[in-house]
């Protein structure tokens, strides 16, 4: 049976706990916390946080899905803070709550897209985090990316010429001066990636700390990620010390709309978690 709580410094956050019947087992495992994917509330895209959370609870994991400030049913914090600082504080509040009420000491954060970015951000400053599941988190183009993108054109002369024409049109369009924007609008949910070297340093430090990482990429974002080992090539100078598992679901879209792909994703995460606990 699940329970719902309000928590946080101002009781402004809403979260739902799926707890196993036998909490003795749960105490020996990290608690799993699901983070919002964009503006989707705590149930996750296609209710995946509910399904996976309940499966994990039935296998002995304490899990929580909750809404960050202003998303879903959580209220905005009355404190004035920069948005990223609010996100960090919210996630720490969730961990504090699980620690105080359920004696959880270690945590695995699971996040898709902005959720992945938020999970990484908190993990760099939180020693309590022992694992990360990052879905479609970070993208940097590599030589392999460009080669994969060009392959269909190199094999087909007509397509190659059409592609070159399109590229040249786009290139010259960008040379035409445009009026400057009066006001620069930055969405509070914009996912601007950090500099690649900073991220590489973060991953190296996380690996050194013993944080297990499952990085998952879907096959739909081909404008940014288009082959299975692109992540390895993105961070080829990082020593992951065996802490990284990489998974590529080529037929899945960003939110795993296809039920069949979602079931594979759930099984992948479930298996990875169990492997960490063995």
């Amino acid at each position, binding site marked *: *049976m*699940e*329970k*719902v*709580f*309000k928590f946080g410094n101002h009781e402004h956050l*809403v979260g*739902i706990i799926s707890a196993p019947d036998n909490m003795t087992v749960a105490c020996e495992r990290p608690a799993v916390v699901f983070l919002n994917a964009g*503006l*989707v*509330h*705590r*149930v996750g*895209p*296609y*209710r995946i946080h*509910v*399904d996976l959370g309940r499966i994990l609870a039935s296998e002995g994991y304490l899990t929580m899905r909750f809404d960050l400030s202003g998303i*879903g*049913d959580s*209220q905005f914090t009355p404190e004035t803070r920069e948005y990223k600082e609010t996100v960090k504080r919210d996630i720490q509040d969730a961990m504090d709550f699980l620690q105080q009420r359920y004696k959880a000491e270690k945590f695995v954060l699971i996040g898709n897209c902005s959720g992945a970015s938020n999970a990484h951000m908190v993990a760099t400053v939180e020693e309590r985090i022992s694992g990360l599941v990052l879905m479609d988190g970070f993208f940097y183009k590599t030589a392999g990316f460009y080669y994969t993108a060009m392959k269909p054109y190199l094999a087909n002369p007509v397509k190659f010429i059409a592609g070159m024409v399109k590229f040249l049109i786009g290139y010259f369009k960008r040379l035409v001066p445009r009026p400057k924007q009066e006001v620069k609008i930055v969405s509070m949910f914009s996912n601007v990636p950090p500099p690649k070297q900073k991220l590489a340093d973060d991953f190296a430090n996380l690996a050194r700390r013993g944080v297990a990482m499952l990085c998952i990429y879907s096959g739909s974002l081909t404008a940014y990620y288009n082959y299975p080992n692109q992540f390895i090539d993105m961070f080829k100078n990082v020593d992951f010390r065996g802490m990284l598992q990489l998974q590529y679901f080529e*037929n899945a879209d960003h*939110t*795993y*709309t*296809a*039920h*069949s792909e*979602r079931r594979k994703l759930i099984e992948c995460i479930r298996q990875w978690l169990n492997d960490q606990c063995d």
Partner: protein
Amino acid sequence: MTPLFFGSRQQQLFGMYHPANSRNSMSHGVLLCPPVGQEHLRTYMAFRQLAIQLSSLGFDVLKFDYYGVGDSAGESEQGSIDVWIGDVKRAYQELKDMSGLQSVSIVGLRLGAALAAKAVSTGLKVKNLVLWDPVVKGHEYIRELRELTANVLNGCSDSELTHIEVLVGFPFATQNVASISNLDVSEIDLAAARNTFLILSENRHDYQELFTQLESSGRKVAKKTMNSIGIPDDPELKTRHEHETQSMIAQWSSKDEFDQALIAHVTISEISTILKKAA
């Protein structure tokens, strides 16, 4: 604001109770009946905004998830029309118990509007029934969901489970799909609702059919189509208003919007105004 689980242990339903602003209590409760499936996710924020606005106007509000939907118990494919109609009744009673009020209105959106109408037809007494972009003909709704599914998945099949049909990413029992297909809100008797309001994003033949049916059966019914609300006379303002209004009207069957959150503050204001006048 109180999050809660209610109902039986095996079929607990999730709800969010927004008590009335104590300074101007209307002594009136409003139950919000959401859509299901992908539309449930798209409209969650809009329903929250509606709850907050109604609460600030003095209404006690309960929004909830049906069995197999959102945070409520049950797997997605375990939900069914009959169970969901029962959930509407359970939530209605929960609202009365929490608020201590006897006077209740219901706002239903999409399939939630159809479920609310079905619940009212079994005798659930409500002062005002607001049907927001209702699913009127179940078979049309299922057809649109199937088309959208095919568009979103680029024609790839997503049916590897028996007795399950996946519609825009959500599994439905095939029996439930058949039940939904048989729904026809225009044939439902809404005598238990004192007033009925249709809040519509666009002009559709089934909306007009529903309105005509309700009028001809002597029900007190009003209709508002949101794409014509408050359009100014000035031509330049009119064009800009229409563009802004169009961007805020839900495109339920659009592939480009199927994963976009509904932004509907104009519609929410309209519904709040209607309920305040009619309470």
